[in-house]
């Protein structure tokens, strides 16, 4: 492979590139899906190819191909060069990626059990057992259980003498029970361990075993059926809510992670993903949340879905403060965007979806750091509130301000105790108002790093895998319930 990367970089320089990098990526994905006692999907997909990124005449060009051979490499380099020259036709300034970065290194996800070596039969048995447990509950209409495993091998080389190889491994699994009552027009879903039936991390098969899918299946089924007859969540203009860890992870993803992407802030995503309310003049000054809100972006957390050794510009993984005691202090950057705001070196968040996409700024593990509250104390300290858990719907505007989330399940809290189950709960708010209304965050004992394996951004479309560490947290004066 070194021959191929060297050939690409040499050719790019000979044809006038002031900078070039090449990534060769091979990705294997295994998916197993069981539904209502039948194995519905069993597939193994592999994809490989390379992408070449160049700067010519001060502008970017990128081209990629699935055919890993010398002549095709030459064709793609020439294509990337031609594209860059076309890009330069309307440029207003030259691309500036800052000082050279030269890194030689490697990284392998630390795992105990390689998920690709575990027999298919063993995996299917585990899923079918969980599926059967869910369907044992009268009223469960659809039971679904799934696993997904990813192995990505990638080589990065640049004209700045970087040469990096990485192997990233992911394991994910989950279950979902669906209950319907056509007479009342109700459809209710319960998932475990995360929304939509899958949590995913950069760990081995040991993660799947730890989830104890079958042991949780009956509860999941029972809750789905119970929700059909549960009271609807009332509407309040100003309620106290406690979000469970998994729902809060998505809240962090949408209302903190996306607005701190510096490419959005600087307008690169304006036409598709949108821009951000966290504009440059707010850095270091803006009160994003209350004193108890501390947020980091940390690509080094063991097991986080946004964990790696080096980003796709060859920048080492690192931890960055984003919100310190409620004040907004940091962005997610690329080499180019870091220069634009004179932030020094990139903090290493450029990632591409496979070989065929150019890197863009992506969340790593953007986490709400633990507070001081034991979860039991948090509930006991709440006289009148609503506990909401596991995401069911999510939506936020293009500047990441106005959001609305719905959860699969909610519990009314009265006098410091969970009382009745509630269905169809939603809450809505404006991002900084909401985070300023946070008055208590759960402690380290309840802190979980969740995986979001389906974050969409960019054109052409790219899916990123991100992680979010959260403990349950309490918010005051939140608008609840808009569903009739």
């Amino acid at each position, binding site marked *: 492979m070194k021959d191929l990367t060297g050939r690409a970089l040499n050719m790019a320089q000979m044809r006038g590139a002031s900078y070039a990098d090449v990534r060769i990526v091979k990705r294997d994905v295994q998916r197993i899906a069981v539904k209502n006692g039948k194995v519905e999907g069993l597939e193994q997909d*592999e*994809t490989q190819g390379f992408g070449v990124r160049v700067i010519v005449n001060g502008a970017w060009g990128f081209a990629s191909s699935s055919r890993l051979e010398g002549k095709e490499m030459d064709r793609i380099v020439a294509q990337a060069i031609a594209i860059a020259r076309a890009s330069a036709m309307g440029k207003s300034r030259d691309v500036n990626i800052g000082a050279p970065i030269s890194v030689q290194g490697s990284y392998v996800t630390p795992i105990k059990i390689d998920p690709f070596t575990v027999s298919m039969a063993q995996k299917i048995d585990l899923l079918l057992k969980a599926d059967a447990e869910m369907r044992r509950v009268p009223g469960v209409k659809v039971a679904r259980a799934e696993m997904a495993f990813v192995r990505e091998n990638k080589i990065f080389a640049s004209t700045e003498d970087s040469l990096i190889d990485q192997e990233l491994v992911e394991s994910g699994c989950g279950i979902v029970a669906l209950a319907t009552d056509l007479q009342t027009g109700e459809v209710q879903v319960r998932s475990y361990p995360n929304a939509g039936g899958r949590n995913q991390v950069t760990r081995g098969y040991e993660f799947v075993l730890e989830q104890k899918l079958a042991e949780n299946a009956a509860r999941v089924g029972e809750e789905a059926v119970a929700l059909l007859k549960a009271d609807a969540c009332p509407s309040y203009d100003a309620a106290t809510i406690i979000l469970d860890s998994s729902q809060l992870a998505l809240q962090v993803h949408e209302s903190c992670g996306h607005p701190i992407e510096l490419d959005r802030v600087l307008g690169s995503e304006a036409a598709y993903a949108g821009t951000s309310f966290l504009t440059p003049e707010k850095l270091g000054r803006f009160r994003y949340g209350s004193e108890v809100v501390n947020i980091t972006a940390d690509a080094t957390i063991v097991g986080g879905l946004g964990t790696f050794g080096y980003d796709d510009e060859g920048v080492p993984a690192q931890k960055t403060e984003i919100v310190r005691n409620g004040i907004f202090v940091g962005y997610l950057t690329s080499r180019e965007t870091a220069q634009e705001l004179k932030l020094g070196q990139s903090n290493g968040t450029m990632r591409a979806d496979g070989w065929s996409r150019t890197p863009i700024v992506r969340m790593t593990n953007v986490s709400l750091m633990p507070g001081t509250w034991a979860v039991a104390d948090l509930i006991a300290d709440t006289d009148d509130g609503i506990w909401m858990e596991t995401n069911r*719907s999510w939506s936020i505007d293009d500047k990441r301000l*106005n959001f609305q989330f719905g959860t699969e399940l909610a519990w009314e809290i009265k006098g410091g105790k969970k009382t009745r189950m509630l269905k169809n709960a939603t809450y809505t708010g404006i991002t900084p108002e909401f985070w300023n209304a946070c008055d208590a965050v759960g402690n380290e004992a309840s802190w979980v790093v969740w995986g979001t394996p389906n974050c969409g951004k960019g054109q*052409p479309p790219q899916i990123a895998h991100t992680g979010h560490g959260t403990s349950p947290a309490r918010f005051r004066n939140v608008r609840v319930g808009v569903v009739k």
Partner: protein
Amino acid sequence: MLGIDKVRELTQQILGMSHADQTEVVFTGTDSALTRFANSQIHQNVAETNTDVRIRVVYGKKIGVASSNDLEPEALKRTLDTARAIAQLQRENPDFQSLPAPQPAQTVQAFVERTANYSPEQRAQIVNVFCKKAKAKNVVAAGAFSTTAFEIAAANSLGVFAYHPGTVADLNTVMMADTGSGYAAHTSADASTINPDALADEAIDKALKSRNPQTIEPGEYTVLLEEHAVEDILNFSAFLAFSALAVQEERSFMKGKLGERVMGENVTLWDDGTASDLIALPFDFEGVPRQKVMLIEDGIARGVVYDTLTAQREGKTSTGHSLPAPNSMGPMAMHLQMAAGNTPKRELIKNVARGIWVTRFWYTRPVHPLKLLITGMTRDGTFLIENGEVTRPLKNLRFTTSYLDALNHVRAISRETKLAYNDWSNASRRMPALLIDGFRFTGVTQ
């Protein structure tokens, strides 16, 4: 692009190597390029050449699927071996009866050579029209312009072989003024149909008119939904309601409603993968010819779309709406159209005393699937309508409303329709603009 002969040879080579009871090969090849612009200049410019071979093998009622984008003979054999190994470890699926047998398919001419040959310079020239016009009007241009050539083939050991080449040119832009923005988009199989001046002017005009937006109280309003907002209604209807699997799993409002009125009398929806005014794909990923399926006719529920498995469950035949195997999503209406009305779009608001004009929706998600209850935001041009005229720009609004309810309150439908293409799902839609009463807005953004 390999062309029909090489693709046929490739699929036959794989079928010949397989000793399974039944084998299916789906081939896709893509040459695509995209030029992205922001801050009134090109900032991302990319190209991709890719192929994919997806192999499904069947032993009795055991099925395995594997795919690879490596077309070398040893890679194809490895992929086939993986699919075989998976199938042999598989449990029997009692619902499975057979892969589909060959059926005569309609050929649709959807490949435009000039789109396939579009160069980065040609894309840059069109993008520069947007950037220059934006600078002249003191707004900022952003957007993306993609040109794609693709070929798809489905073959199986029962004799199916279907091949289709096509092209797509897709351009969208958001023009941003200091406090407002405007959107315009164009999709066609033929890149030469793009009129960059008209599109730029449309988005700039909207951006300038949407400056200094005001807040309006949430509540129920009559809305003029432009075509790209209506596209979202079609997308969720296809995804949540018009699939046979959704009906079989009792999560679609179509369950038990065939022959009954479920929408307003003025609503007619159908799916037709052979329609030449969409991005046609005349067969599905099992090689079954796509039938034109009437879903809603004059407000009455008429049908849903099937793949082979969901059809066999009901003793029916597939309508040609399969997704690639293995498929837990079920069949999908990928070429949904809504019948046009007879009112010019600009006249739709003539009799609206007070309402809201919506350019497009953003980040829409289901809140309650059975009710088609959806939440999302308006974006890139939201205006107040008063006494039949657009009078003031509004801050973006959140809606939480039932699209099913909305399709029961369509007051008028535009004569014009637009084509839209979704680069995540590859679905294309053709839809008019709609005037709808009682659309429920639940919040405002800053």
